[in-house]
């Protein structure tokens, strides 16, 4: 990529050439994936074992990809930081997975799922990617059922469905409130089968710390054995990252504590473009913060909005218990503002509406940062046993955390960081801008635009992992000479020595502040200025503060112990160091995008009714950022988005 001479839009970033290599197949959208599959070069089954593919991350995307590649006969090396591939954070997804089966005969179709997803993403996703996702959704359910995933069923033995936000059909398949767990265990069992068959070598408690690029191609990774501290080099013909999202940049999020950006950030530093980093999703229904000790936030599934009604008191500072507030003095603000979708508006709309009523002083609970999610009407209408059948594990979890019983008093909920739509930029084949580096699942930027619909993350992870990546990676391998370098190659040696230097620097800083205290401060800065509402002034403040804090971190962080042992402080320190650099890019991206769309709400750009105001003439593009150096301006490459099927319009859920 080159930088256009003389174009200096602002010192915070520089403008580069447009991205033209989206690599989408031409022709009718219905045939695009078929066309591409026919174009893809194949690897003879007998030759596949000669190709080594590294897969980092074993969630729905990585686990499914590693298992599928193993089944096809490739030599796979899989890595995860947890002690078992079964624990990746896909496991925590509660509500369900979308598929355009139309088993309910309620007018669903592949086209409608495609349409809902493009619209739900506020017209900032590639149409052809989304259409493929909708097509594959159907096969995913078949595959999971065959693996033994115990989806909810009706008395006739057929699969049950429920509704989710942003849709008016029932297309969400579920396994009580543990859908992600059951789908991940399906992928995990397929993966373990391949480990047993010898096609996949599994490396648990190994964390990727760098990407090895040789002659412009991804050829390996540097990992740290988290038990012994050994820094290892693993070489391959191609590298696949399924390492999840970066919501933990905010410190408090619904992500698992170990979720981090290091794999994708280190790859970004090695040349992979980063797409739409500021597109983060704030989930409307999470359990509110209870104090300074808070280490993470817990989601309450969106599916609860099927039967729960969201409200706050009409009056400000109303401290009465919820059952003392009569109907006439309650504001069911989602039902009032969005009568057609009611409590099932998309997540970004619901989150912003909650923030608005709390900003007005009508929030409930300690600190006024909460709204009620009330099941009283549903319990009266359907009976407690029905609600118990649908949501019991979620209600139990809520009671365990808050000590309050949601069968007898309304839940208190508040928005929290949940998912990142942004991620490494990939083309239609899921290949990043570094040849041989593929990125799947939440780690890439594709498919969800500026806002993801509920029950679509599981769908995308599995579509990428089971169906897209195993086809496209073969095309790359068929056309590319195999890797001949080993750990002694200069590029590998350099990556290892840089990794060692970083570790020594972290251990040797010898300061006084803990890693967590820096992470909390970074997270607070990001939440205040790059969270639910963003302004030019706030983002500039954040961009002034983050580099200062980053410098303080490197000078005064205290990481005890050594590298040559299990050292959880060292693990965290490396991740937080990368979050600092990512945070700056997120703020630059949010600053440059002078419009509101989906999860990116710039307060300067809103309609009179307080809805997001897109600027399609100027910003209908993917912002693909090139690394410019630490503290140096990144380079913006724009990939224009075209909409041939779904005409961009102001989203309306009224």
């Amino acid at each position, binding site marked *: 990529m080159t930088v256009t001479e003389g174009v200096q839009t602002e010192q915070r970033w520089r403008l580069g050439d447009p991205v033209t290599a989206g690599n989408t197949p031409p022709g009718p959208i219905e045939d695009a994936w078929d066309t591409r599959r026919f174009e893809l070069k194949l690897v003879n089954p007998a030759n596949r074992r000669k190709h080594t593919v590294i897969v980092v991350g074993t969630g729905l995307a990585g686990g499914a990809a590693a298992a599928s590649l193993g089944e096809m006969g490739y030599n796979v090396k899989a890595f995860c930081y947890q002690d078992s591939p079964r624990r990746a954070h896909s496991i925590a997804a509660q509500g369900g997975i979308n598929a355009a089966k139309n088993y309910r005969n309620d007018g669903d179709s592949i086209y409608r799922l495609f349409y809902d997803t493009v619209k739900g993403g506020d017209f900032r996703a590639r149409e052809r990617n989304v259409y493929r996702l909708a097509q594959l959704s159907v096969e995913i359910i078949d595959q999971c059922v065959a693996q033994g995933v115990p989806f909810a069923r009706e008395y006739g033995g057929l699969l049950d469905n429920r509704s989710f936000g942003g849709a008016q059909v029932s297309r969400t398949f579920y396994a009580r409130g*543990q859908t992600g767990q059951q789908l991940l265990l399906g992928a995990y069992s397929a993966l373990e089968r391949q480990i047993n068959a010898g096609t996949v070598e599994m490396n648990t408690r190994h964390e990727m710390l760098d990407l090895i690029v040789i002659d412009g191609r991804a050829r390996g990774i540097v990992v740290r054995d988290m038990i012994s501290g050994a820094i290892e080099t693993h070489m391959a013909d191609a590298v696949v990252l399924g390492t999840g999202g970066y919501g933990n940049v905010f410190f408090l999020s619904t992500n698992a504590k170990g979720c981090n950006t290091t794999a994708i950030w280190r790859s970004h530093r090695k040349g992979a473009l980063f797409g739409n980093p500021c597109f983060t999703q704030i989930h409307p229904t999470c359990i509110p913060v209870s104090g300074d*000790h808070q280490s993470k936030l817990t989601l309450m599934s969106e599916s609860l909005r099927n039967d729960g009604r969201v409200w706050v008191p009409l009056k400000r500072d109303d401290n009465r218990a919820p059952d003392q507030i009569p109907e006439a003095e309650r504001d069911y603000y989602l039902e009032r503002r969005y009568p057609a979708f009611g409590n099932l508006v998309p997540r970004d709309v619901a989150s912003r509406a909650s923030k608005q009523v709390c900003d007005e002083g009508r929030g409930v609970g300690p600190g006024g940062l909460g709204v009620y999610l009330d099941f009283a009407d549903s319990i009266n209408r359907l009976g407690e046993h029905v609600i118990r059948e649908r949501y019991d594990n979620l209600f139990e979890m809520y009671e*365990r955390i808050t000590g309050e019983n949601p069968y007898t008093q309304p839940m208190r909920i508040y928005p929290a960081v949940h998912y990142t739509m942004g991620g490494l930029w990939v083309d239609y084949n899921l290949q990043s801008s570094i040849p041989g580096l593929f990125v799947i699942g939440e780690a890439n930027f594709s498919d969800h635009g500026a806002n993801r619909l509920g029950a679509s993350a599981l769908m995308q992870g599995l579509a990428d992992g089971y169906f897209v990546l195993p086809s496209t990676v073969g095309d790359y391998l068929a056309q590319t000479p195999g890797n001949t370098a080993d750990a002694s190659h200069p590029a590998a040696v350099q990556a290892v020595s840089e990794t060692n230097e970083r570790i020594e620097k972290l251990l040797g800083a010898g300061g006084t502040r803990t890693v967590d205290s820096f992470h909390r401060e970074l997270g607070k800065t990001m939440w205040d200025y790059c969270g639910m509402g963003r302004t030019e002034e706030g983002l500039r403040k954040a961009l002034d503060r983050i580099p200062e804090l980053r410098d303080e971190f490197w000078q005064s962080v205290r990481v005890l112990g050594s590298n040559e042992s299990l050292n959880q402080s060292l693990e965290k320190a490396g991740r937080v160091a990368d979050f600092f650099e990512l945070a700056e890019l997120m703020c630059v991206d949010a600053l440059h995008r002078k419009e509101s769309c989906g999860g990116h709400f710039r307060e300067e750009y809103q309609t009179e009714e307080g809805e997001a105001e897109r600027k399609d003439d100027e910003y209908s593009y993917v912002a693909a950022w090139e690394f410019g150096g630490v503290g140096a301006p990144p380079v913006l490459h724009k990939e224009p988005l075209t909409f041939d099927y779904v005409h961009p319009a102001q989203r309306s859920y009224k």
Partner: protein
Amino acid sequence: MKLTLHVWRQANANAPGQMKTYAADNVDEDMSFLEMLDVVNEELIGKGEDPIAFDHDCREGICGMCGLVINGVAHGPERATTTCQLHMRHFTDGQEVWIEPWRARAFPVLKDLVVDRSAFDNIIQAGGYISVNTGAAPDAHAVPVPKDAADTAFEAAACIGCGACVAACPNASAMLFTAAKITHLGLLPQGQPERKSRVIAMVDAMEQEGFGSCTNIGECSAACPKSISLDTIARMNGDLLGASLRASS
């Protein structure tokens, strides 16, 4: 509230370990147990002492990564609750709390409260799956599954693989973990073709990994954060008997 903690400290797998005592003086009742340990660790780092290592990840009771023996009970005093979901409101001011790792020969301690549970993965590798390659599946509605079978299979499939069953068992047996997977797959029509070979292979792997035998005590199910039923063990034994008879005839 203020607590006195007695915590197992062990530098690595080969080093000897011992209980060490720490004061936890700033405990809020809304903290989770792991958040209480976070606060203790921040104080330890401040004093230049090595923080206590413990496994954890999702902190919402589903990943199965966390697991501590608290006052002699796997995952602590609350029923059907993982360590990360245990909150300090269940403790009282001035209480002494003993915190230990899972104790089992098949789960060697790696550091402090962190153990190696890869034996569980090895049991799954032996047969805890349905052999269906990606792309080979029939339509999801091709085979109806009776609702009660699907529901019971789900209840067994809810196992999070944390290892509390092994830690709670006086024999350090992995019967409940193994039986949960065998029950989940054995109840579904899709799991029938491999039902007999699966139970033989998985039980064999379980024994190879060095877990103890089952003497029907039931501590496993009582400690299980997902309340996996002892019925699964009865079902596994039945399947094993049937499969073994067929194999030997």
